[in-house]
């Protein structure tokens, strides 16, 4: 891929990823966040955090599908960091607009409420990944170490999905689409790797 196309695509990705945030700011300023602004902010940021995290997990399976898609790796860090960005606002919304900084409620939540525990754990798992996302950190850690650390993203994504299921009312199926997407992407890894290995073996045999 040439430089110009890459810059264009990156710009478009930035715009797409910033879109939900820009909408929220616009709606907050014009007081058009809907009947329940607090929950609009919480739901929008939470959903987009998960969506972008799952999109970042689509990069590897797509690259396994075809070597012609290898350029997608250049977008993975961007998606991951935007997921962290939305997760951070999501957490801030909870601390400020839901708890009003009331630490006694937070203490009850973090010890008693499983959806808060799952969500908070998922967020904490994302922190070291965001901190080690710079090129400098990758070099410093070494590719192997860095790769091992960043396996945490699977746990974070699963934790986020569990947080979503535990948050909705029992019987409500709205987290289903993201759950299926994540399951497909996680299963695609071993399956595609297996197929590739078999192809390689066949090539050697021939």
């Amino acid at each position: 891929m040439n430089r110009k196309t890459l810059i264009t695509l990156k710009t478009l990705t930035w715009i797409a990823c910033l879109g939900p945030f820009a909408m929220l700011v616009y709606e907050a300023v014009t007081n058009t966040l809907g009947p329940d602004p607090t929950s609009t902010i919480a739901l929008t940021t939470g959903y987009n955090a998960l969506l972008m995290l799952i999109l970042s997990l689509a990069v590897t399976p797509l690259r396994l599908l075809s070597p012609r898609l290898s350029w997608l790796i250049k977008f993975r860090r961007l998606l991951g960091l935007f997921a962290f960005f939305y997760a951070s606002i999501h957490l801030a919304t909870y601390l400020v607009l839901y708890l009003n900084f009331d630490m006694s409620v937070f203490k009850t939540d973090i010890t008693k409420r499983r959806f808060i525990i799952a969500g908070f754990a998922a967020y904490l798992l994302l922190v070291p990944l965001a901190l080690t996302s710079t090129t400098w950190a990758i070099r410093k850690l070494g590719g192997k170490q860095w790769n091992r650390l960043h396996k945490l993203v699977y746990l974070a994504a699963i934790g986020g999905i569990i947080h979503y299921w535990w948050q909705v009312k029992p019987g409500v199926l709205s987290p289903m689409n993201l759950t299926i997407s994540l399951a497909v992407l996680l299963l695609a890894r071993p399956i595609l790797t297996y197929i590739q290995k078999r192809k390689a073996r066949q090539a050697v045999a021939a």
Partner: protein
Amino acid sequence: MLIRKPSDIPSSEITSESSYNDFLSRRRFLRTAVSGAAVAGGAIVGADRIADLLSPGTSVLADAEKLQTVKSPLSTTGEQLTSLEDITHYNNYYEFGVQKTDPAKNAGVLPTRPWTVKVEGQVKQPKTFDIEALLKLRPLEDRVYRHRCVEAWSMVVPWIGYSLSEFIKQCDPLPSAKYVQFLSYYDKKVEKWTNESSIFWPYSEGLRMDEAMHPLTLLTFGLYGQVLPNQDGAPIRIVVPWKYGFKSAKSIVTVRFVEKMPETTWYQQNPREYGFYSNVNPNHDHPRWSQKTERRIGLPFYAQRRTTLMFNGYADQVASLYNGMNLDKNY
């Protein structure tokens, strides 16, 4: 960054930008002005006053049927009414979809005429009431009530109806009737959205007999001077203002008097989270969130949070119903 207060945009600009028709813009302007005043000065504008301000607008509503009403001493005062727009576009009515915005889009297909309410179970004789007869049974009263959802949001709604007790008297329940069960309309061919959740339909709710007979329990036909919009439970529902919203069954087709505590939808779904009583109680948390505070619908995000009141502020009237009961156990 989201904590910052919105800049002071003149409401005239908001109006010109909005794509709403004249009526809606006017109402929105009123709401902005009123909520602005309330937030800035901490002033509480009387609900009646706002209802007066808004009433000219309600006549503009297309095909909305107006209802003749009388004043009621049981109406809540000192609260700022939630706008008609929010009351009709932020609904939990899962038969029409699980998103809050779904019922406003989908509930139009609910056939509200002809409509009958079947009365059965522990009664002298089963009966069927026509909706037109029920509308004329008693004078319709304006009853402003706080409405607190188990999800920790709240509204203030100017309902229209009369005490459910007036209707129950017409049903001649037997002394053996200890509970009343309400079944909502359900037709899979009409309500095509029920597969969005794994709930058993029809929606079922219930009250203890003394709760049902309490004068605050409202048999409800309308709101804001007009018949109930479909998404708010047309054409007939109950409203129990001291309980979480899901206790107030919508679009009722069957009223059943029973001896034992009836099986109710959310209780069946998860008894730990949705008790049979489900009285608004800031001291008994939902397993998944605190019930100490709530978000008032229609206010800006920085002004929504408020303290939840015991029995939703109706303790003076209803606390005696639960004398001697452990409300932490009987949640």
